[in-house]
């Protein structure tokens, strides 16, 4: 049976890893939301060059593995003389990667707002940016929340790649505890439970919002 003394004896380590997983996920969420909004606006702005840049970012990042992005920050930057600690490198990698997916979610949300809204806003004298800010985005946000929630769930799961570069997250501490206790199975069962504590409530919440949004339409 599962040996509960592991979690009791190593509670502090589990908590430290759990805390860092939450921290990395939240920081990356914030960063990728900001970056994602910029890219989404690039993609739909009435400027060809920006459209192209936005599309290039999204398509390139979405089609390469996350771990490669993280490795570029962790192993690639030092080759150029910039050294980041593993937590920062991992979180930046997560941010750059997730931003591509969030940009697509936001773009889809903006495009889901009927075109007439933009035309009406423009003809009533708002500039393009004002129309975006006061008319389109507030409506798009409602549509965008459930898929954003899904991206956040992915982000929490993806943050486990920090463990690969010793990024002090749950996976890293799982590794540390198992090399200390020479137990693997039970140690990772508890790691799994900690991930589920984060992801299952999020999944249920997203499911609830999706159903509510489907009904309101």
């Amino acid at each position, binding site marked *: 049976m599962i040996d509960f003394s592991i979690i009791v004896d190593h509670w502090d380590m589990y908590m430290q890893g759990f805390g860092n997983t939450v921290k990395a996920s939240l920081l990356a969420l914030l960063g990728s939301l900001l970056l994602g909004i910029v890219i989404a606006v690039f993609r739909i702005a009435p400027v060809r060059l920006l459209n192209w840049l936005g599309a290039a970012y999204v*398509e*390139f990042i*979405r*089609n*390469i*593995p*996350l*771990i*490669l992005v993280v*490795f*570029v920050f962790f*192993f*690639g930057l*030092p*080759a*150029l003389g910039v050294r980041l600690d593993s937590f920062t490198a991992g979180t930046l990698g997560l941010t750059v990667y997730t931003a591509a997916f969030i940009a697509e979610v936001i773009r889809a949300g903006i495009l889901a707002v009927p075109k007439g809204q933009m035309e009406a806003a423009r003809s009533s004298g708002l500039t393009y940016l004002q129309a975006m800010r006061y008319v389109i985005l507030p409506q798009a946000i409602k549509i965008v929340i459930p898929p954003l929630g899904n991206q956040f*769930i992915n982000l929490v*799961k*993806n*943050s*486990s*790649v920090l*463990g*690969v570069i010793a990024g002090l997250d749950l*996976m890293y501490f*799982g590794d540390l505890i*198992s090399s200390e206790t020479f*137990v*693997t*199975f039970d140690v*990772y069962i508890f*790691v*799994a439970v900690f*991930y*589920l504590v984060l*992801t*299952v409530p999020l*999944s249920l919440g997203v499911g609830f919002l999706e159903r509510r949004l489907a009904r309101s339409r």
Partner: protein
Amino acid sequence: MDFIGAYSPIHLKFLLEGFLVTLEVAFISIVLSFAIGIVIGVLRYARIPVVAHVLAVGVETIRNLPLLLIIFFTYFALPEVGMKLDKLYAAILALVIFESAMLSEIVRSGLNSIEKGQIEAARASGLTYMQTMWHIILPQALRRMVPPIVSQFISLLKDTSLAVVIALPELMNHAQIINGRNVNYVIPIFLLVALMYFTVNYSLSLISKRLENKRV
């Protein structure tokens, strides 16, 4: 940065060998996961009591865990309970566990997208439930599932790189081995590796997009 040294024929060949392992592992995993995903998806769609509930809990649990954790499990934890797998099988097992859960959801929503009236009509015209499933519902649902399955395959191809943690000799592992020889190789190698993944995945995504447009 040393592009010429990094792109020596030996290195290129080594990377290509790694990429072949990536493609092989991804391909085997998607085929197995699809088979299992169909079974799980159909069982859940049919709402068979108890079985459907147990599967629902299993699928949701797996979908809410990081794949990396599952890879650690199949490679490092299973030997502790007497199941020792080599890297290749441990990686494939982990990917199949994770992807079957993902694909079963695709199968289930594909099945759910077929109007209920079709089942009623088929049953009314004398087909059994199994016949209805096999001849009426699945063929239509499968066609609708193609685009999401292609996207899932793209994810799988990318996710195979996580097996770098168990030193499976796939593309990322080979890239890291070359990078270990000379720090000036790192950027050129990452650039090339990114292009390799991008080329294959982007082509797949274009195919998927075309299939989607044809359907609508």
